[in-house]
């Protein structure tokens, strides 16, 4: 009896699978008035949903606005987001489904399945972006269709270094981690520009992502023979909070400079310890910029709450960038978008960008933010004079 029950359950599941897949695989047409499909196969439930979900929320708003304004080339945009759960097989599956549906452009995942996903997309000749992936060596390794339409780590690290030199800070202590390409790469780019500009790295230490304890590093810094002008580290939230609190508890008052991984409202949980932290980021609301203010208002009206991260602005801009390219090319095909992306110039809520046709990366101004009185505030926007070379370019 038990056996029959399990067979029945299996049969039920199998037929459910058939129904579900039958419903979801509607073929897409290619004619006038048919929607232009933009796909987003990314992580909406795993670790990288931290970045990919805000991207999606921003993209949804842009799609809604564009379609209300009559679409692109008279055709509506259709945005399809599929959860790859940060699982490689599942992300490939989702990517394939989007390609089969006739997507002309894909927003990629910020997580590690990106390389495989982009390879698949390139085989189909469909352009794909890096999502919120900022590592500058991503697109070069894949090929012609991969594009990096946001700021890159080499540029943001260079901006951090040049901003520091501008303040007259000439000695830096660097804290890095080999656990991730980001925490490993950013310090290298920083060191390149900082030493090039005449700064000195007085020491380096290693940390483990998610260790929950950075007292050893804090003690090491506290006992340096002479405090450096500042400490540079690409540490992520929520490690940032732990490190800052433990560092301040050791009596160290030295300036800390971070990168975009540290810019999240949660860094304020560190309270007084977070005060004074400076970090580089994509963009930040400031009094002089009406675009961002309008974006936040529109977003709040559309989603019912303010964006939980400014990364939403990146998703929003990416959709408008692609819409602008399709409009300019007069054609909504993958080839036309690749052609248009090569030397695209675009201004969105997160700033202006110019695509570099040789590296296929965007040149984009970097924003600096600072924590003041328990708030993240806009500090400055810069483009670096010395951009560190990227291995493999």
């Amino acid at each position, binding site marked *: 009896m038990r056996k029959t029950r*399990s067979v029945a359950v299996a049969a039920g599941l199998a037929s459910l699978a058939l129904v*579900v897949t039958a419903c979801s*695989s509607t073929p897409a047409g290619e004619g006038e008035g048919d929607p232009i499909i933009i796909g987003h196969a990314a992580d909406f439930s795993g670790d990288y949903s931290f970045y990919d979900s805000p991207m999606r929320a921003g993209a949804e708003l842009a799609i809604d606005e564009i379609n209300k304004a009559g679409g692109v080339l008279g055709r509506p945009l259709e945005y399809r987001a599929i*959860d790859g759960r940060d699982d490689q*097989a599942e992300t490939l599956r989702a990517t*394939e489904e989007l390609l089969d549906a006739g997507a002309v452009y894909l927003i990629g995942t910020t997580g590690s399945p990106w390389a495989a996903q982009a390879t698949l997309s390139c085989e189909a000749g469909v352009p794909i972006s890096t999502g919120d992936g900022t590592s500058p060596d991503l697109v070069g390794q894949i090929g012609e269709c991969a594009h990096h339409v946001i700021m890159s780590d080499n540029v943001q690290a260079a901006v951090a270094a040049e901003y520091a030199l501008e303040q007259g800070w000439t000695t830096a202590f660097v804290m890095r981690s*080999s656990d991730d390409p980001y925490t*490993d790469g950013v310090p290298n780019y920083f060191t390149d520009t900082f030493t090039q500009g005449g700064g000195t790295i007085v020491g380096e230490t290693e940390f483990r992502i998610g260790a929950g304890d950075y007292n050893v590093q804090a003690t090491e810094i506290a006992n340096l023979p002479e405090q450096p002008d500042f400490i540079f580290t690409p540490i992520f939230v929520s490690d940032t909070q732990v490190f800052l609190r433990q560092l301040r508890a050791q009596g160290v008052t030295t300036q800390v400079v971070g990168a975009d991984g540290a810019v999240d409202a949660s860094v304020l949980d560190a309270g007084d310890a977070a005060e004074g932290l400076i970090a580089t980021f994509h963009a930040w609301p400031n009094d002089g910029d009406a675009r961002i203010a309008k974006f936040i208002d529109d977003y709040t009206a559309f989603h019912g709450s303010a964006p939980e991260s400014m990364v939403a602005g990146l998703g929003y801009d990416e959709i408008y960038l692609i819409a602008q390219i399709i409009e300019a090319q007069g054609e909504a095909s993958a080839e036309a978008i690749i052609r248009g992306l090569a030397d695209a110039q675009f201004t969105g809520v997160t700033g202006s960008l110019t695509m570099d046709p040789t590296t296929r990366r965007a040149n984009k101004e970097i924003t600096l933010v600072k924590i003041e009185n328990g708030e993240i505030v806009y500090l400055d926007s810069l483009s670096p004079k010395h951009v560190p070379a990227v291995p*493999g370019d």
Partner: protein
Amino acid sequence: MNTFSRRRLRNAFITWAMLATVFLVVTLLAEFVLDRGQSRMATEFMILASLVVAIQSYVGNSGLLSFGHVAFFAVGAYIAGLAAMSPEKKEQFLPNLPDWVISLEASLPLAILIAVIGVAIFAAFTGVPISRMHQSVIPMATLALLVMTHTVVNLWDDVTRGTRGLVSVPDLVTTWTVFATAVAITGAALLYAASPAGLRLQVVREDPIAAAALGIRVAATRFTGWMVSAVLMAIGSAVWALNSLAFGPEQFFFAQTFSLLAMLIIGGTGSVTGAIAGTAIVSVINESLRGLERGFAIGPIQVPELPGLIQLVVALALLLLLIWRPAGLFGNRELSIPRRRR
């Protein structure tokens, strides 16, 4: 216990034939019926089944839980991937590799062979101390093996490209090669379980002290099982790698370990059939829920999107199944022709 029992061999062949038929049906569906996404999933299922069966050949026969098989998975996948990558790509991404590695551009069979040799050497080195440990600490030692391997893969930039992973790994695998792999690994696992060496390991599993009293060399028997399983794992990993386009160290850590072991435990560690059934169940749950996860409407009620639903359902299924049948769905039984009770 030193010669093959004819009855066991015959049963193994019958089971093999039946399981091969299942794989054949899946392959034919993938080739002629399913759409591209679904046939990718069918191929993925057969690769995963191969890996789970390879793990089963150690865990099932020895009764020892191994977290270390994903270490073999990593070693096999990287070796096969490096062997098959084109010299230009290796020159571009991994210029510090030795010249003979760079100039190598292996075909699928050669890549598998090199992976098998590499993993066998790795398994021999780790297997000697692990087989001699007390059985209560072997799972712990294999867990340590996994963490150590992951650390090295993560940091050895010149060979593995560190956390950035391998890219431009050629796709050399077709549904039919995956089918052949799954059938071969299944056959080898069944044959080993029915062989004198496999039987000795099962005796050790039931009672190591009694087995030793019977003159079975416990450590040597465990070592044999470890090696057989590692070789099968290497074959599966090589095929996995050459179907993956790109992969990195995070593919070979706790998440992967638990997902493979969960499939094995759901189906039952005691049988090859169970290993394959467990993989199938998880794949079917996955496939059935991926539509639901995106949110859907029942009449006027809009059910919201439920990210993470699949994980939740797989875990619930695992828990309920274990409460209902602690030995997994199939326990120690293999698929066979029903016979009258004697």
